[in-house]
């Protein structure tokens, strides 16, 4: 692939094809056919995504005991939310968790991608293997990692003790919020690295070309050309991947549900937004408060998305 500035343009189609394209196609068909083609998509977007969002916002301004919509109650749900120390700490915890997850994911992914990019006959097979964890269902991977981190029979403790860290003899990872989050972070990162790493690999491959060759001829070292040339070239891609993994991290739900006892415990120390919202809705049955939590999450992620849209400047 010889694309030099990915995502800056709709690359691939030969450039000379561009000028005549639009007029000719407009002649061929009016808006009839294209509307027909995107109608199913629009139906889904409006029906299953658009309406629910509007509805959630609406619900967040109403009482909602027992999952039945009650009267309008203004900002009550929101004020109650921010007065609740557990919600506020869950908000902070989720954010910190997301930042750590993203940082680890991106760094590890980049390393993996560089190793694979360095190439060799093995790289092809390894690439397939690297992507495998992505295919393991999240519930299953949560269970396996919980077993690996089991205090008595877990292989993680055995390994750490064998390496000389005697403190980990019977160490209970899920007793405190911090160590639970460490275990969960490892599980989540293990699950999210593959997709990001392979995408980065593709990005790295696309930076190979004249510029890189020229730099090498000029005597630029590996690190130098990576930091000065290749990574800057991949900036749009890195932005997307960063945002994607931020959002995945914010949405982590399955791992938390499976790995903590009680969900979000011990003593509220692993409660994150997604889990708290779900419990609020379907255990406490207060859809008003839950909707308000969902809206807060939504606004937060929308802000991140906005940053992304600005940074990557989508063209038409």
């Amino acid at each position, binding site marked *: 692939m010889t694309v030099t500035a990915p995502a800056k343009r709709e690359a691939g189609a030969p450039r000379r094809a561009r000028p005549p394209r639009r007029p000719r196609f407009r002649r061929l068909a009016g808006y009839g056919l294209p509307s027909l083609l995107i109608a*199913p998509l629009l*139906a889904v977007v409006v*029906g299953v995504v658009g309406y629910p969002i509007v509805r959630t916002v609406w619900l967040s301004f109403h009482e909602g005991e*027992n*999952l*039945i919509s009650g009267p309008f109650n203004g900002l009550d749900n929101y004020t109650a939310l921010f007065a609740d120390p557990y919600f506020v700490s869950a908000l902070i915890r989720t954010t910190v968790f997301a930042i750590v997850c993203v940082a680890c994911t991106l760094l590890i992914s980049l390393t993996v991608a560089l190793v694979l990019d360095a190439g060799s006959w093995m790289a092809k097979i390894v690439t397939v293997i690297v992507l495998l964890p992505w295919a393991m269902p999240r519930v299953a991977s949560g269970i396996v990692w919980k077993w690996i981190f*089991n*205090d*008595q029979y877990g292989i993680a403790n055995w390994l750490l003790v064998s390496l000389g860290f005697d403190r980990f003899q*019977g*160490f*209970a990872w*899920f*007793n*405190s919020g911090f160590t639970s989050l460490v275990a969960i972070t490892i599980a989540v990162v293990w699950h999210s690295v593959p997709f990001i790493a392979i995408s980065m690999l593709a990005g790295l491959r696309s930076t190979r070309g004249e510029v890189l060759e020229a730099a090498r001829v000029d005597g630029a070292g590996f690190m130098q050309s990576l930091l000065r040339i290749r990574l800057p070239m991949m900036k749009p891609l890195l932005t997307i991947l960063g945002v994607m993994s931020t959002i995945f991290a914010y949405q982590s739900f399955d791992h938390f549900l499976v790995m903590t*006892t*009680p*969900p*979000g*415990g*011990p*003593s*509220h*120390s692993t409660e994150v937004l997604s889990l708290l919202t779900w*419990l609020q809705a*379907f*255990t*406490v*049955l207060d859809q008003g408060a839950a909707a308000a939590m969902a809206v807060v999450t939504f606004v937060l992620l929308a802000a991140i998305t906005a940053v992304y849209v600005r940074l990557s400047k989508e063209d038409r």
Partner: protein
Amino acid sequence: MQDRWRILTATSAAASLLLLSACGEDTPAPATGSGEVTGAIDVWMGDPIGATQQPVVIQLAKDYETAHPGTKVNLRFLGADAHKTYLTSIAGGTVPCVALIGNTWSPEFAGLQALEPIAQDPASMQGTYTQSMIDSTVLDGVSYAVPYDTGVRALIYRKDLFDKAGLAAPKTWDEVLTSATAVQKANEGVSGFGIVGGNQWYWLPMIWNWGGEIATNTGGAWTAKVNSPEAIAAFTFYADLLTKHKLSPEGAVTWQGADAAKAFALGQVGMMVGGSWDLKTILAQNPGMEAQLATTPMPSGPGGNNDTFAGGSNLAIFKGCTNKATAKSFVDFMMKTDNLVPVTTKIGLLPATTDALEKERTTGSFSAPLLKAYAEQAPNTRSIPAVSTWGKVEGTGAIVNAMQSIMNGQKTAEAAMQELAGQIDAAIGQQ
């Protein structure tokens, strides 16, 4: 099975979805209000029915279908989040016809208008069922469920290790502490006491043992009492077993009953509070242990009693059931002594009908020496506040969180219990 047919209809429904006629309905609801015992009913089996009991229940359902031609029983076994599953189905209007529900949930579901009344006057049930279980089915003077099984906890301990150390079965919580410490000291690799930090039913009753209350009812209004000095002392004592006396592995903060039973079966625990079902689990995992263990009633506390929680399940019929005639006939079928006992025996619980209970006590599985302690414990039971919003206390894990925060040293016992009292008040006091 008619499964293949269902898949076919569903596939064609999915195909029609593809053609964007998205509003199809694939199962016509068979609304037979005729009172005839025929047609299909959904039956859900919650908590105590585990893998080993499933075959018995499946067989019973088959027997019922054979005895009542034209009926079909769709069984579903729920996991530990059965409570949430029921709530979601109530809110969504997708309830089953018959369900085995935890006895503490009965007033809650009844309060959500989800259950069909069983008896307008609960007094009419007296004599037929265990009294504490009848109490658990009642909300505002009406009974909404049929008591099915009942279980109590007692102490399970390693008789061989106790004998070796010259210890007798502990009678008080203080003796539990001293003997557990002695057993742990004398036996390398054995924890003195199996702590179950993740499940409140193993230690919440200690509040009663210390002379306290969970909540009291004055003039119809409930007030939490878990911030009383007695309750704080009880929780502190239990947390200390782990933090100060280190009588369990660190991980016991999040243990469930099954974890303690597993550790006990592996020979790593000297003593634990456990239900008869825990005992069954232990013996199923390690049959050789039968000669080594013994049971004794719960220890008593400073309050002078050894009361424990009357656990159990009730069979309920949901209001949303469209085939109530079959549902009622199925419940009657399940409650027959000959059908009830095989299931309760398999779970390791006592049946909740007096007839079946008598049979189990005298000639049945509870006449065995190991289970005698449970029969002795049975009169010393209490039930939790019978209030429809109690489920919120359970569902949010507030009690477990309080205990865990004491164990982890995140909060002092006073602060944790004060907060818990606030949460309980918020949940059940608002009526």
